């Protein structure tokens, strides 16, 4: 059912295709382990974007997984992007992979074919440009239906004013793909970070990363910085957000799997009443129920990314993405919170790694719609009980 890696990409000179190489390099990266001291220090250092780390992700080809080959990327699908995101989630890598390599890459991919689009996509894949999509203004707003940012026609381009929020990756952005309304028509506009009238502020998050807020005050956007307009802009953004929600779900799967492993390891070694606590049936059954949530999340994720790669219509795509995010967000939260409980008092300390996983699960599940918001959207998109693939 899931397309195998062999079905994607071209072979290289070693007879391996891009997908298989990708899986291998992610495996190596994960095996190398997480740089948890760095993650723990984020709240003080604010170093959520490490240029050297980003270069490494670019060299591995991971940033360009979704970027078309004609623009210097690998031109692979969401199934492969999910492999990368799961590995990075597992390692708690703070760099904004999903925000840039998925949300921005997909948005730009859907933009009109201009020199700027090509330059940004190529730069994104190479790690030399960091375009970040600043689309959202209100919570729970899928697809940017509640946009107040206005674009007034000006010398063939626009003058833009508004306030964008919840922008993951803003700290490192060299520019923003901004959504704005010109009358009733949606525009996707490129605004360099240093454009006159553009300023950013950071809102600290539980896991030491930050949301950026982007303030736009009468920012002049010349015609050549218009990336997409009207229905094309709407379609590009909607698709990009669904795809990013699905790949964000993969991050959550990586986070939950590692956290649950830590719980199980602890249960096997921590001795109380003369026995490992993992021998107690009440804890065993709780661990099993969480494992079931993890496996449901994993199964839904794999089906979802495979389904999204077949380019279904917008409603099917949105429902699938919401199904994945809902399950993965809830499972990640319940598993990481239980990890604190399984570890007892030590789990409540700053030194204990499970706290880092619990906090990352909170920020990734909240971004682009939490479990509740996606359930609401799933319901609003229509009901059927046909096992998800009717």
């Amino acid at each position: 059912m899931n397309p195998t890696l062999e079905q994607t990409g071209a072979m290289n000179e070693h007879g391996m295709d891009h997908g298989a190489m990708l899986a291998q390099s992610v495996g190596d990266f994960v095996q190398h382990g997480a740089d948890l001291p760095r993650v723990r220090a984020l709240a003080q250092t604010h170093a959520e974007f490490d240029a050297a780390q980003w270069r490494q992700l670019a060299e591995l080809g991971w940033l360009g997984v979704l970027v078309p080959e004609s623009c210097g990327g690998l031109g692979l699908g969401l199934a492969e992007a999910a492999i990368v995101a799961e590995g990075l989630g597992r390692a708690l890598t703070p760099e904004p992979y999903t925000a840039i390599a998925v949300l921005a890459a997909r948005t730009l991919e859907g933009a009109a074919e201009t020199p700027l689009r090509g330059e940004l996509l190529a730069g994104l894949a190479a790690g030399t440009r960091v375009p970040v999509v600043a689309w959202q203004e209100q919570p729970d707003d899928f697809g940017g239906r509640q946009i107040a940012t206005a674009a007034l026609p000006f010398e063939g381009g626009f003058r833009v004013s508004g306030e964008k929020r919840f922008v993951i990756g803003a700290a490192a952005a060299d520019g923003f793909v901004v959504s704005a309304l010109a009358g009733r028509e949606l525009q996707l506009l490129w605004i360099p970070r240093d454009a006159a009238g553009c300023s950013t502020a950071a809102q600290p998050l539980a896991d030491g990363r930050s949301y950026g807020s982007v303030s736009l005050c009468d920012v002049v956007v010349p015609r050549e910085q218009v990336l997409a307009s009207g229905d094309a802009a709407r379609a590009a953004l909607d698709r990009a957000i669904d795809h990013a929600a699905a790949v964000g779900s993969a991050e959550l799967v990586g986070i939950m799997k590692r956290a649950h492993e830590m719980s199980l390891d602890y249960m096997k070694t921590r001795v109380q009443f003369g026995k490992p606590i993992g021998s107690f049936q009440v804890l065993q059954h709780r661990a099993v129920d969480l494992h079931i949530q993890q496996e449901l999340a994993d199964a839904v994720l794999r089906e979802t990314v495979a389904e999204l790669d077949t380019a279904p219509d917008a409603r099917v795509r949105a429902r699938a993405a919401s199904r994945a995010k809902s399950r993965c967000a809830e499972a990640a939260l319940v598993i990481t919170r239980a990890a604190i409980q399984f570890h007892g008092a030590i789990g409540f300390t700053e030194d204990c790694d499970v706290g880092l996983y619990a906090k990352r699960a909170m920020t990734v599940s909240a971004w682009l719609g939490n479990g509740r918001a996606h359930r609401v959207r799933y319901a609003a998109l229509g009901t059927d009980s046909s096992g998800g693939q009717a």
Partner: protein
Amino acid sequence: MTDWNTMSDEDFRKEVRAFFENEFPEEYKFLARRMRWHECRDWYRKLSKKGWIAPNWPREHGGMGLTPTKLLIYYEETERAGVGRMPDQGLTMVGPTLIRFGNDAQRTFFLPKIIAGEAIWCQGYSEPNAGSDLASLRTEAVADGDDYVINGSKIWTSMAHDATHIYVLARTDKQAKKKQEGISFFLVDMKTPGITLRTIRNIAGHEEFCQVFFDNVRTPKHNLVGELHKGWTIAKGLLGFERLNIGSPRRPLQAMEKLETLAQARGLLSDPAFVERLTQLQLDLADLGSLYRRFVDKVRRGEALGPDVSMLKVWSMDTYQRLSELLIEAAGEYGAVEGEVAIGDEEIDVLSPFYNSRPGTIYGGSNEIQRNILAKYVLNLPS
């Protein structure tokens, strides 16, 4: 023979839907209990003639060989049309077990009889003192000439009163060091002298299971499946198929059909608090589908089901019960009414999913036993 897998999912769904809707007898649609053999015999044979009786079996043995996605579509349409549950042990348990563990002679003899509806099977596993602790079973089989002679009793044997055959776990070596060793797996004709039945009425008032007594019952030696004393391996393999079967979304789907109908009839879909709970259950069921397809795919590739299949059974039956409970709650005062009740334009039996979902967390290894299995063999937690 048609290869159903080459059809598009949509076309396949349409064809299956039309057939179930038009051909399944009206009077048995959405039956509150399991169908008895005399009620479903004609339908069984109609499906058999059409080549649709064994959607999960490989084509070489007379099945449809469906991919996981198509198999689930088949089940979804079964439930949507209200097709009743037939005595299906041969199709879901014995067939897959013989395909995997039986010998050619057993396959050649029994599989066509199952397909044709000539052999109806029941399961001789539990005993009065061997329920969750199945390996402590005491029914005994002793070699005598060309036969084994079986003595003892089995209980909670669903549909035994309709069965022509029973598969039995019996102890063949009382000296074995571990209780799991020295058990063997036998096929027995229910007409054999020495077999007697006592039906047991269940909580819903239906006679769906029995106690089966064996008094010097002789079964020929060629009806031993697999090696002597190694029946526990086969029993576990069969339990894998049983957990896959119980773990399929089809039974919770039945309850979901009713819940959605009731919600429409009572206008509950404008109540956000209800919709939130309904949506959660719809997602629980849809996600069960994803997990189910993963395991079906494994079987289709010829891989053995491991202990991890237990999670499917836990989640499926847990979801089924939660659905049945929300159905009762959503019915308000009608939630107390036994049998079919008119609500709006619909006739709904509100309580039958509640009754039908109760044994699901008990039979086939209780959900607590499944969790023990998962803890030990999948999570490798200490004992």
